[in-house]
């Protein structure tokens, strides 16, 4: 029995650009979401007749309500972004259930998303406070606070990325360890049966049925969905507070 915990494996190179499992799996998830959106928005009518259109309207209405409730009417244009981030994050975490490498278990993915959020925050601060107001914000409440303000500005995306990465990656590590331990336990226990029967049975990790499934429900499903929700909630909170601070 060998337990192997590694990061994303490098699949191939394209002209010096390294393509890892993360990139490929992210594109798979993106294609799935695009396909889903493409299918449910065929033949839209003013009066919905198909079940497809009702599903599409339900999703759009839910996200519009969520964004308006958390950010105010001024930011209703952010609804597609929030919906995209939430679905992408949730599906990336859940894709780990199929046995492929979950893209959110790679820090690079989360850093990229956090940089998007950081740009949005800065953009909104400059848009609503002016460039001078944005720079002046670093000297509030007294100029001595400048280094602390810079650190807290940088800490926002870093903490968002690390929080999501840590949750998903810890789930992957714990599940790998539990699966390895269960294989070893069944090999040891069933190996006690004498004769050829024991030799055959000990090759099958029977104890891996049951407990890992229950743990996976928390570590993969619950944790992934909560983090997707949290990431989009924090995006909304930070962006709307960036605009309201001036």
């Amino acid at each position: 029995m060998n337990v192997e915990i590694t990061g994303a494996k490098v699949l191939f190179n394209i002209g010096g650009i390294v393509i890892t499992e993360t990139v490929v799996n992210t594109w798979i998830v993106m294609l799935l979401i695009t396909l889903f959106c493409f299918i449910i928005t065929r033949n839209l009518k003013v009066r919905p007749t198909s079940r497809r259109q009702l599903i599409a309207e339900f999703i759009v209405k839910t996200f519009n309500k969520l964004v308006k409730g958390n950010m105010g009417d001024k930011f209703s244009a952010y609804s597609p972004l929030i919906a995209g981030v939430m679905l992408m994050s949730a599906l990336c975490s859940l894709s780990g259930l199929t046995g492929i490498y979950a893209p959110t278990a790679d820090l690079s993915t989360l850093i990229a998303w956090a940089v998007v959020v950081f740009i949005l925050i800065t953009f909104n601060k400059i848009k609503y406070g002016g460039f001078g107001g944005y720079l002046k914000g670093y000297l509030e409440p007294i100029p001595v606070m400048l280094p602390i303000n810079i650190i807290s500005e940088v800490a926002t995306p870093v903490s968002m990325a690390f929080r999501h990465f840590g949750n998903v990656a810890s789930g992957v590590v714990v599940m790998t360890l539990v699966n390895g331990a269960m294989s070893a336990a069944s090999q040891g226990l069933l190996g006690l049966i004498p004769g050829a029967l024991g030799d055959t049975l000990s090759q099958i990790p029977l104890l891996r049925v049951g407990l890992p499934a229950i743990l996976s429900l928390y570590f993969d499903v619950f944790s992934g969905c909560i983090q997707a929700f949290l990431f989009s909630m924090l995006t909304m909170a930070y962006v709307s507070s960036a605009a309201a601070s001036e």
Partner: protein
Amino acid sequence: MDYESMKLLSKAIVLGSSALGAGIAMIAGLGPGIGEGNAVGKALEAIGRQPEAKSEVTSTMILGVAMAETTGIYSLIVALILLFVNPLVGKL
């Protein structure tokens, strides 16, 4: 002691210290545990006083608990890096 075994010994010391450091880093798990316990306890009190606000209190609580978990997650990342990336071995 010759050079090779010295090198092996120093690597062993660094690996062992990394494992110890990972374990010590996870003591930080105490903080989020206490914090989350407090948050859930207060949420239960709130639900007890106002059972009709249960869904709202629960969703806010889950958000807050996930936020409070962050510090524990930081220590977990430090421990994972110490265990699996072994950044200190390269500094020998």
